């Protein structure tokens, strides 16, 4: 099709190649088909109550996966997100519990701490030129250790006893829609806008696609990488707020292993672990797909150990399908 013709039709042909279509359609189709199957086996699945439940279950993973999408698009990885959630949560929780801080400043602290932890990761990655896998493998331990140290390894229960309003982030709702779902949507939309409309978004793809060419184009790679890891930290901070509120406690062991769920959601969503290719819409679908599988299997009374196996299989399958797609269009 000619340029003029596509312009006249108002089409952006960018997304209309087979590979790109599959990138989003594949996971989406899987999500829909799976939902229909579960619905057929267990009608309760489609009840509004249960669907909101699924959305709520997806929220923690989806928020973290939004930040993780940026990191992975640059060709990086962040293994420390679970620990970042814990340390952010502990910091805010301690301020409320031990020092009697009001709710809003404490919440802000959680988000800011998350952002700072992310910046620490980014600074070590860029200035130290150390692979992100190694850096965040280290900080995963460091952040978790710090969280345990700060609380003496013990959870702080009943935060709402000190700050009743803190409950709004996890258990509140707006017009019947649970707060975690709303928070997730806000984070997701923000991520989508950043990725599509800002320099940070453009450079996120560029750095992952070809860091050298991007640097030779005069882009300050380090600054934008720092931004990406910072953003990842902020999403961890937001997740910390939501999760501590929902659990009504702050626990130094919270969100253990959650980094793997976030990475899984990104990968299921079609983003390449090599960077440079992928979409944040896919990530959201990936997170939903994981939640639907968990929820569906629970409704069908499948033991939770099997659920874990199924999720694992889906991750491998998603990458396998992606691999086949790439071979086709190579």
């Amino acid at each position, binding site marked *: *099709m000619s*340029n003029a013709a596509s312009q006249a039709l108002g089409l952006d042909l960018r997304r*209309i190649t087979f590979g790109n279509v599959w990138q989003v359609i594949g996971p989406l189709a899987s999500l829909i088909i799976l939902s229909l199957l579960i619905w057929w086996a267990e009608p309760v699945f489609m009840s509004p109550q249960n669907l909101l439940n699924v959305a709520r279950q997806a929220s923690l993973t989806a928020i973290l996966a939004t930040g993780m999408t940026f990191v992975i698009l640059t060709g990086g990885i962040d293994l420390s997100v679970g620990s970042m959630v814990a340390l952010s949560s502990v910091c805010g929780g301690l301020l409320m519990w031990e020092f009697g801080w009001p709710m809003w400043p404490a919440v802000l602290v959680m988000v800011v701490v998350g952002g700072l932890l992310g910046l620490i990761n980014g600074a070590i990655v860029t200035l130290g030129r150390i692979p992100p896998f190694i850096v965040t493998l280290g900080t995963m331990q460091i952040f978790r250790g710090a969280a345990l140290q700060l609380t003496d390894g013990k959870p702080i229960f009943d935060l709402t006893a000190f700050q009743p309003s803190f409950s709004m982030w996890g258990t509140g709702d707006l017009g019947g829609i649970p707060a975690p779902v709303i928070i997730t949507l806000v984070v997701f939309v923000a991520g989508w806008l950043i990725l599509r409309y800002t320099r940070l978004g453009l450079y996120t793809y560029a750095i992952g696609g070809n860091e050298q060419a991007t640097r*030779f184009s005069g882009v300050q790679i380090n600054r934008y990488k720092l931004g990406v890891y910072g953003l990842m930290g902020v999403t961890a901070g937001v997740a910390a707020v939501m999760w501590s509120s929902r659990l009504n406690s702050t626990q130094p062991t919270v969100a253990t292993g959650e980094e793997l769920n976030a990475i899984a959601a990104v990968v299921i969503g079609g983003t390449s672990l090599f960077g440079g290719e992928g979409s944040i819409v896919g990530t959201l679908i990936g997170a939903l797909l994981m939640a639907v599988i968990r929820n569906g299997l629970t409704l069908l009374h499948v033991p939770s150990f099997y659920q874990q196996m199924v999720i694992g299989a889906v991750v491998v399958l998603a990458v396998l399908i992606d691999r086949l797609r790439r071979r086709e269009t190579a």
Partner: protein
Amino acid sequence: MADLVSPVRDDEPLLALRGVGKRFPGVVALDDVSFDLRRGEVHVLVGENGAGKSTLVKLLSGIYQPDSGEILYDGQPVSIPSPYAAQRMGISTVHQELNLVPELDIGRNILLGREPMLAPGIIDYRSLYRSAREPLAALGLPLDPRRKVRTLGIALQQTVEIAKALIANARVLILDEPTAAITAEEADQLFTIVDQLRARGTAIIFISHHLEEAFRIGDRVTVLRDGRLVDTLPLAATNQQAIIRMMVGRELIQQFPERKSTPGEVALGVTRLNRTGVLHDITFEVRRGEIVGLAGLIGAGRTEVARAIFGIDAIDSGEITINGLPVRVANPRAAVRRGLALLPEDRKAQGLVLLMSVADNVVLAAPGQMDAAGGLVPPKNRANVARRFVDALRIRTPSVGQQARLLSGGNQQKVVLSKWLLTEADIFIFDEPTRGIDVGAKVEVYRLMNDLLERGAAIIMISSELPEVLGMSDRILVMRGGRIVAELAGLDATQERIMQSAAAGSIQERIEDVA
């Protein structure tokens, strides 16, 4: 290796394609192509980029399967299901991107996958190195098989690949643009090797962008255009012009277009630039409206000059002036801000983000040019900006949303150029501006360079193609060993003079240099 010397029978082809077709989504890569290869011949395959040469090679080396037609080997229809199968059948390919393990030594590379064993799983290294010496000696290369491949230059690495093919008892050897990345002298060595192999009865497919080479080394030539066979004929019965006509389907009137600009003020000055062990006292200037050509052999330091000026590599001493003012270019960003533009030699690795769209590549260096509020770069604005350049530079792409990797070499180069036009750069460094670009598209690139000059740009052009250097440069600086050893202009500038200055020293010296 005794069976390499099979009786040479010219009558019947060793390998043949009969009406072969290969399609990819949206593209017919090969359409009803027939081709035959005889024992003991060098069959040159030419065609513009996208003509189907690579696809043909990939069919023969087992990477692709044909959609239609058949492949005959020794007169029998065969299928070549995998690269491994191709090798087992005696079809070895030396790809442009070499398939060597840099961290392993020469011997282990040559016998990779066919290591002699003492017992199951236990490699007999003594016999391995002994076997590895054989093909190296046969190729006239007294290299130590225990040397790591990483330490070899590209030309020698290529020879290691050929040695690998000899070990595999190759009856058919496919050389995919073997001379693209090596110097003229190294190419001479390669031709000697090819001659030897031909004499032993090996059938060789030789792919090249350089027609002089075709005439020098080839017996027959096959021309492909747009996935179709144009003709196969003996090279003795044709000439370069005729082949170019067949390749492009039209007459190329003028390879180096007329230029109207004349040199003006000094745009860029470089004074006594030093980088220990790499560059020594580099001093030159470039005026607006002129092209300064940097000639020299690979490794002479030309690209290193470009990298130093562009702030990629730090310099130890020296001064750079832009428009007469001393400047410090600490990194590429500073260079871009000062109006410099680099069109790197390796477009795919350094010039483009292949996975991104044409539009995103165009705006990569100057997203601020899209005048959207708050520093935003909406996709729509990117597309609009990119469309301007697609039209102005006649970039052939179905849309600005097309991934850059799907464009041909010439169009990719235009995308890189668009990127710099958007930053309003006025000092351009073209490093091998037409490498891997079709004959027709080359002329377009030259025209664009002339346009830049007329708008007052200054250009440094690094090129290993002497006709290009001579045809496009106002002045030519010849480099050797990190120094500028000659400046040639006007009648002084001849291929002979350039080569004399560029190549003092023998191949042997350079083999040692590499180490």
